[in-house]
């Protein structure tokens, strides 16, 4: 089959690799009909998530049709049209039982690696997202093996197009969880969203669904800001203005009640902190550039929430923890418990409350994937979201 392969930092390519096979009785094989490039894939391309290996198959936002199931699969049937959450959950461990699917105890075979970096508990397995997270082959491919298939395959029975349900795999639940984590008081709370990429766009719309009085979106890319404005957000281009001053003014000096950092570890931005982050990241003294997180903490109103759907990988420097402490902020973060949100958000799509395909700017065959990784990274050509067809 054809698949997008990580060939080293800054290098991805389409290669012909063996078709996946069932490795365990609880596995299924899915023929992929649509697969997307996620902003977090760019952290892999850029080499900021450790433990990638040459030859790894990328991709964690994909859907398709079940073509084979193992003898231990009870619910999923061959021929079903399914979407798969990007994270892998066993469904039986204590975190899974409590709905904390991204904290699954059992899905990461490389638990020791994750424990060494992140402490006493293992991070759950993820599709196509480095060996630290299990080294599972991803779904930017014609076929994919789905472990824990009964937990990981959600049947889509309606006639909604792939475009409309594909983002239930990651970015829609991720934006939604970010907004939910804010604990928005409907009609009262103002929410600021740093980053108007795909997750930021879904966070904005989710904050609106949850009743935010106003949403303010901060970015520097004009077409992304326009897409946010189209949804009714106020926008701030941080290249044109001092973002902290603008946010204070926009909120009557209070600051936004909640701030969502939908940027993560490769923030751009200005000032000595941003320069220091860039230098440290280049020297591998630090993995993460945290300008967006600094702004989020500094701008947030007293007693507010800083919610972080943006991905962080390692150590950060010059985090304004004093500001967070003295304003009594709540910090919420983590990989999305995607499994929790698939059905409720599918219902919202079916009821016409949102059509997630608004975010797609580029559709192309899988073979053009490597080129579109770069277009997406450079934000060229108005690129916000890329969806690939593995069979075109």
């Amino acid at each position: 089959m054809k698949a997008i392969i990580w060939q080293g930092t800054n290098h991805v390519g389409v290669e012909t690799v063996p078709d996946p096979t069932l490795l365990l009785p609880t596995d299924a094989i899915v023929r992929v009909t649509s697969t997307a490039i996620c902003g977090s894939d760019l952290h892999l391309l850029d080499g900021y998530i450790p433990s990638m290996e040459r030859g790894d198959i990328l991709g964690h936002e994909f859907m398709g049709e079940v073509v084979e199931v193992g003898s231990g699969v009870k619910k999923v049937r061959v021929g079903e049209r399914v979407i798969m959450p990007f994270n892998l959950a066993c469904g039986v461990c204590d975190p899974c039982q409590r709905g904390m699917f991204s904290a699954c105890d059992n899905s990461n075979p490389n638990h020791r690696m994750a424990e060494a970096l992140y402490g006493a508990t293992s991070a759950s397995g993820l599709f196509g997202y480095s060996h630290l997270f299990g080294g599972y082959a991803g779904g930017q491919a014609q076929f994919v093996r789905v472990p824990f298939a009964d937990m990981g395959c959600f049947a889509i029975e309606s006639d909604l197009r792939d475009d409309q349900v594909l983002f239930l795999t990651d970015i829609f639940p991720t934006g939604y969880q970010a907004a939910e984590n804010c604990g928005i008081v409907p009609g009262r709370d103002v929410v600021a969203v740093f980053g108007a990429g795909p997750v930021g766009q879904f966070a904005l719309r989710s904050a609106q669904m949850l009743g935010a009085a106003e949403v303010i979106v901060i970015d520097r890319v004009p077409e992304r800001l326009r897409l946010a404005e189209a949804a009714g957000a106020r926008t701030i281009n941080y290249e044109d203005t001092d973002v902290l001053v603008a946010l204070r003014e926009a909120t009557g000096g209070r600051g936004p009640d909640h701030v969502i950092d939908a940027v993560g570890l490769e923030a751009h931005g200005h000032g000595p902190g941003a320069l220091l982050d860039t230098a440290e990241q280049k020297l591998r003294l630090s993995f993460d550039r945290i300008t967006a997180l600094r702004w989020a903490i500094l701008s947030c109103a007293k007693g507010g929430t800083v919610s972080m759907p943006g991905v962080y990988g390692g150590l950060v420097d010059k985090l304004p923890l004093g500001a967070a402490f003295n304003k009594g902020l709540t910090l919420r973060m983590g990989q999305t418990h995607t499994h929790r949100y698939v059905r409720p958000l599918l219902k919202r799509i079916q009821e016409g409350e949102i059509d997630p395909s608004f975010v797609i700017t580029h559709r192309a065959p899988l073979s053009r994937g490597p080129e579109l990784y770069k277009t997406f990274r450079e934000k060229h050509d108005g690129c916000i979201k890329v969806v690939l067809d593995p069979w075109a």
Partner: protein
Amino acid sequence: MTSSSFSGGRSVTPSDRQSTGAMMPGAERAIFGVVGVFLLTAGLCSGSPFHRLAVAALGVGLSALALSGRSPVATALKIQQNEDGETLVSDAVTIGKGADELYAVWRKLENLPHLMKHLERVEVLDERLSRWTVKAPFGYSGGEVSWEAELTADEPGQRIAWQSLPGAQIENSGAVLFRAAPGDRGTEVVVRLTYRPPLGSAGTLVARIAGQEPSQQLRDDLMRFKREQELGYHPTTKGQSSGRAEKGDKV
């Protein structure tokens, strides 16, 4: 460590381990002390102020280590040792099953090679005695090493402890404790092992680099036990598709 450490109703809290930590054997401690005092003296008597400061500081550091009795190598590597130079390894895992059920799996000692990868086999000789065989670890010649061990405690649903008999090639002891996790989360399984590494801290270091060190093996073993009990299988990527030339995938 003697078998008495595992007998009787000792607390399972970390406080019962105060006597351990990364302690230096007496000889090593004496060397650190002598060298430390020498450097301190030499530093204070030397010419340049920078030299004086640097050498004296090193001397103070080594003397302090000698006084505290803590081994810098073992401390840096987080190797826990007791005063006899035995290495202590412990780890724990919470498993969503009852203590009696998990105890029953461990109590069938011949099951243990299935749980603990480095064990080749355990033969039960009688009520108390068993014969344990492992692949020869670093520092031993030949393919296998075996020893006889006796049970020193067996409290159904709570605790099993064992100890190698005198004359064992690898002197070791161990205990596994089963206790209810708070809030209906199943059972906390705590394993403590002591052994005498063939070449002291250095042997432990080499074994660790080779990924054969008991603390690493124990972590893997406990996670394997948990997954065996909770899932009935082990998640894997072995044999999955990839763009690597070799057949199959490395885990």
